[in-house]
């Protein structure tokens, strides 16, 4: 009988600790599949975030080094500058990348560091219990916006990926969603492209992945995926925002 499904080689045989319906497990798998397919497990270094994915190093069977909250792209810069033949990626949430680490992220991108950032956006601070993040949508209820986010007081959702796409340093910038199997496959394709851009030395690459957080959204897993597609994708349009390989 033909074997049609296997666990990626660079994922350890350890069950994920993530909540039911959380997108991290899927995104971990996509990153692992890409590492396997590109055959880079012997030269890849990952940087997990402070956030729900803080224990990512328990799952990936590759070199990983924890960075302080928000500092992923700065630490990645150090790795890459010292060992340019290594493939470096950060795995960061929206608290990590779009709040506390905004400066590091924008400047690494602007310098065109040859690193890849996988940016998981679930519109809340997940690990600390669902507080409002810069990515929280207008009227979205969180534990620090109990009546919903109000633009006049708390501003607007921060589309950091769009900001990064306006810079000259980045080579590949895209936003995807886990809402459907087809979109998950598109996400994987984009993550692969981001790593390939780094391998070719073209510049900074980033893939934002819109991901559900049923626990903090107070939704069932099924409803969280519906919310992802009907609400989040409206606020954060999916697509490739910048791709230097497509230039003539």
């Amino acid at each position, binding site marked *: 009988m033909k074997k049609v499904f296997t666990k990626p080689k660079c994922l350890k045989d350890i069950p994920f600790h993530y909540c039911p319906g959380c997108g991290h497990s899927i995104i971990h798998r996509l990153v692992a599949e890409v590492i396997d397919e590109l055959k880079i497990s012997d030269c890849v270094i990952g940087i997990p975030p*402070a956030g729900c994915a*803080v224990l990512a190093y328990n799952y990936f069977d590759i070199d990983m080094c*924890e960075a*302080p*909250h*928000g500092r992923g792209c700065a630490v990645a810069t150090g790795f890459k500058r010292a060992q340019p033949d290594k493939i470096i990626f950060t795995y960061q949430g929206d608290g990590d990348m779009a*709040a*506390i680490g*905004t400066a590091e992220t924008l400047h690494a991108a602007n310098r065109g560091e040859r690193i890849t950032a996988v940016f998981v956006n679930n519109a809340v*601070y997940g*690990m*600390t*219990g669902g*507080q*409002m993040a*810069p990515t929280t949508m207008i009227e979205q209820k969180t*534990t*620090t*916006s*109990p*009546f919903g986010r109000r633009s006049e007081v*708390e501003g607007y959702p921060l589309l950091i990926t769009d900001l990064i796409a306006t810079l000259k340093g980045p080579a590949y910038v895209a936003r995807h969603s886990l809402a459907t199997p087809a979109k998950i496959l598109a996400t994987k394709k984009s993550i692969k492209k981001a790593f390939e851009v780094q391998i070719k030395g073209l510049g900074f690459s980033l893939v934002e992945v819109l991901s559900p957080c049923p626990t903090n959204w107070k939704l069932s897993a099924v409803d969280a995926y519906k919310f992802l597609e009907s609400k989040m994708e409206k606020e954060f349009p999916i697509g490739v925002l910048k791709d230097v390989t497509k230039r003539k």
Partner: protein
Amino acid sequence: MGGKRKGIEVSLAIAEAVGQANADVIAAYPITPQTHIVEHLSELVANGELDAEFVPVESEHSAMSVCCGSAAVGARTFTSTSSQGLALMSEIFFIASSMRLPMVMALANRSLSGPLSIWNDHTDTMMVRDAGWIHVFVENGQDAYDHIFWAFRVGEDPDVLLPVAVNFDGFILTHMIEPIEYEKDETIKRYLPEFRLKNALHPDKPVSMGCFGMPEIYTEAQMSREDGVTGSYPTIIKAWEEWGELTGRQYHPIETYRADDAEYCIVTMGSYGETAMEVVDTLREEGEKVGVVKIRLWRPFPFDEFRGAVLGKKALIVIDRAISFGGPGGPVASELRSALYKKEGSPVIVNYVAGLAGRDVSRNDFRNIILEGKAKAESGDTEGFILYGLRG
């Protein structure tokens, strides 16, 4: 609100105290185990129960910066953090006291990275020991609630004008539901006058803050800060006395339990004091002449009260919740040794470092520490420190 006994999580009681104190500006970033405080404050603001600006900034560095800004224009200012958040704040943390800006921080003590940990010890607060803030350690939920008012009262006093950190143990207190006596809003109003910062930034009366300190003035500026922290002592004592008169709950910079006739005392800071008292009761029944000395006020350090409480004892068994790597021992024991140096009747000090990153220190552990510490003192084995419970 207020005027009754309530079973409530300590973090929520702290938030409600900040509400009763009528804070004007709250700026914070979520970090475990502090988070419930600012979550509850955001609810109080959203519900209209507290008329304040709640600013959910993008990092602790910005939180402390916002606090400096709001305090500089004369707003009653509150923040809360822990561990890595405090580390990220630390640049501005030092500046706040230098600019003599009153604000209150509920500092949910948690270990610092690395290794990364979310659990309780005192490594975070020891990092900012020398930052020019007033530091108080509370022992239980009631202490925590009471000290929010005390902290605003002391820090905002025109004779003080300093930021105040209320240290309380992460998880051990933050996540504990305790019975807490709430005070009536009228009582708080009587205790806590409206904040009026004499030299607040205002276009009608311009002042410069945070100026460059050239070598000609930097030394004098630091002496002024030292005078400010040391000189806050009488106000601190008065604020405790008045709180005691209003509520019947009296606090002191150094508090003792069964220590008067004790030959050996265990010295604690924070929530460990309660377990220590339990264990001392048991040991007393067994005939051991032991007591507890609790350090409530950490900065300014109450030298006279401390010496008065311990001179004449045979030994102090000091529990530290942090290590000074490569140094003379835990930071608390190190300071106590210094405070007692060449004083007549000084007890010897046996230093234990225990309960790092939330490792449980049970009643039985306290018993072991006291009895083993006593034996070490008797045998003259008092150098350095013992890392209690170290495996392997």
